[in-house]
């Protein structure tokens, strides 16, 4: 036990930022991608880590004047949490050593469950394994803080992540027929953790609307809105404007306001560039791995290829609603008790609106109400989970101190919320 504890501690100390490049190289060699190509992939992942580190620091420091304003109010109100989005949360997850344990185990587990005909979903979207990794690593830190021995806490984290993985596979099985029919995507399904709350809320809202006479007949058209805002264009411009709005609310000097706004916009432009380095390094390996498992499985199995929401993002209603959801999301942030102003969230609204078409059957009104409900849920949970997300980011080495709280959309997923509740029960936070 002592030995295991110290090995685990050693790995945690060095961090996945160093280990993952090595593992990517080794996995590449295993899947016959050639040593130097694999090493290049590994180093890209390493570069991605360092890049994300820099951009996150920039984002957190850039928005500091706004946070400072709210801290100086001293009553805990206002926006004290920086929204680092799923981009930031994914980077945190990938840099924990859990990534290297859970990815191969989850792949093998998926293969075995297909073989046993327990599931029909083959989750080839290795990138998005970070959703289960993050829950597992959160549990580890929570348990470690509660005084559980390192080795046991680590094992619990891994098992928890794999359990989450299985739940999502079954969920993807269940949603597959409807997903394939509505989005016209035969042979596929969607297996992201976030779809559980997205479609759960979507389902409930649509059921309620159907029950209310009058409301179930509302027909609405918002295309004029999206046409207007579509011209407003890129996420960078939008983020700049958001920066200005935040600066005005928090009474910044003109020079501060401009620096906050430009820094935020720059972070939003830079973030995809550095995160995609991670992805570039990862994709050849995940591709080779899924081909390998598919060929080993043979033709005899009915398989749905599991991906994230990327496949459904062309949904007409969803695209149309992004424009109007941007101001609505910003207004929601002012509800009492919400401490995270949506920055990264605005860029990912399209995931919500396109997914919410599933149970709305493409109906604009039902989709809009569902999207609003989802954003409200997410805003509250993201705010509430901020201390846990911050602790994780701190442990993973992405931020230098817990003085500024960070959070991101991933924390609203069931596996993270559950860990948050466990932490509350154990009085860790």
């Amino acid at each position, binding site marked *: 036990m002592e030995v295991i504890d110290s090995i685990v501690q050693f790995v945690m100390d060095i961090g996945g930022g160093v280990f993952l490049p090595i593992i990517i190289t080794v996995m590449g060699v295993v899947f016959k991608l050639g040593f130097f190509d694999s090493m290049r992939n590994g180093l890209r992942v390493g570069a991605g880590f360092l890049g994300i580190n820099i951009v996150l620091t920039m984002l957190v420091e850039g928005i500091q004047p706004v946070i400072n304003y709210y801290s100086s109010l001293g009553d805990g109100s206002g926006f004290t949490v920086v929204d680092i989005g799923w981009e930031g949360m994914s980077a945190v997850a990938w840099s924990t050593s859990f990534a290297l344990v859970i990815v191969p185990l989850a792949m093998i587990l998926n293969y075995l469950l297909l073989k046993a005909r327990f599931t029909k979903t083959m989750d080839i979207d290795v*990138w998005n394994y970070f959703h289960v990794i993050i829950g597992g690593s959160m549990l580890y830190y929570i348990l470690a803080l509660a005084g559980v021995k390192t080795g046991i806490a680590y094992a619990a984290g891994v098992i928890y992540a794999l359990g989450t993985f299985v739940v999502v596979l079954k969920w993807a099985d269940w949603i597959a027929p409807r997903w394939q029919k509505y989005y016209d995507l035969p*042979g596929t399904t969607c297996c992201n953790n976030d779809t559980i709350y997205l479609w759960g809320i979507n389902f409930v809202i649509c059921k309620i609307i159907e029950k209310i006479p009058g409301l179930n007949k509302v027909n609405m058209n918002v295309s004029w809105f999206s046409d207007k805002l579509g011209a407003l264009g890129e996420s960078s411009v939008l983020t700049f404007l958001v920066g200005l709005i935040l600066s005005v609310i928090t009474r910044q000097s003109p020079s501060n306001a401009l620096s906050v706004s430009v820094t935020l916009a720059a972070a939003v432009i830079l*973030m995809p560039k550095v995160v995609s380095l991670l992805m570039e390094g990862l*994709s*050849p390996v995940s591709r080779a791995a899924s081909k390998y498992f598919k060929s080993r499985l043979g033709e005899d199995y009915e398989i749905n290829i599991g991906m994230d*929401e*990327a*496949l*459904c993002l062309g949904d007409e209603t969803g695209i149309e609603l992004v424009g109007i959801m941007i101001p609505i999301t910003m207004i929601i942030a002012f509800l009492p008790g919400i401490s995270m102003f949506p920055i990264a969230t605005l860029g990912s609204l399209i*995931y919500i609106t396109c997914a919410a078409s599933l149970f709305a059957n493409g109906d604009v009104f039902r989709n809009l109400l569902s999207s609003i409900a989802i954003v409200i849920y997410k805003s509250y949970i993201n705010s509430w989970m901020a201390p846990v997300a911050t602790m994780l980011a701190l442990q993973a080495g992405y931020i230098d101190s817990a003085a500024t709280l960070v959070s991101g959309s991933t924390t609203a997923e069931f596996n993270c919320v559950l860990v948050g509740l466990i932490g509350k029960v154990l009085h860790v936070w």
Partner: protein
Amino acid sequence: MRKIRVLVACGGGIATSTFAAEEIKKIAKDIDIPIDIIKHPLADVQAIGKEFDVCFVTSKYSREIGCEVISVGGLITGLDEEGAIRKIKDALSRANDRVNHQG
């Protein structure tokens, strides 16, 4: 002879589009068409589409954006990957003809 400007878009312009972009780069190299490839979130496409010669999306997409839009979901899922690769080759060739061989 100028390079073909290629836009690749998925939800966040990060994960899935990177995956697709890597494959599209390989395909372009195979058929010897020089390209400049840029990734963006799908939400940006409408605003910037006109700056490109061709746009590949990983989902379905039916809006008018000022350049040809091709769905290449098959590249991601591996379902009818051959079909997706053929579509990409055709689209790149068409764009190349438009840009470099006109008159």
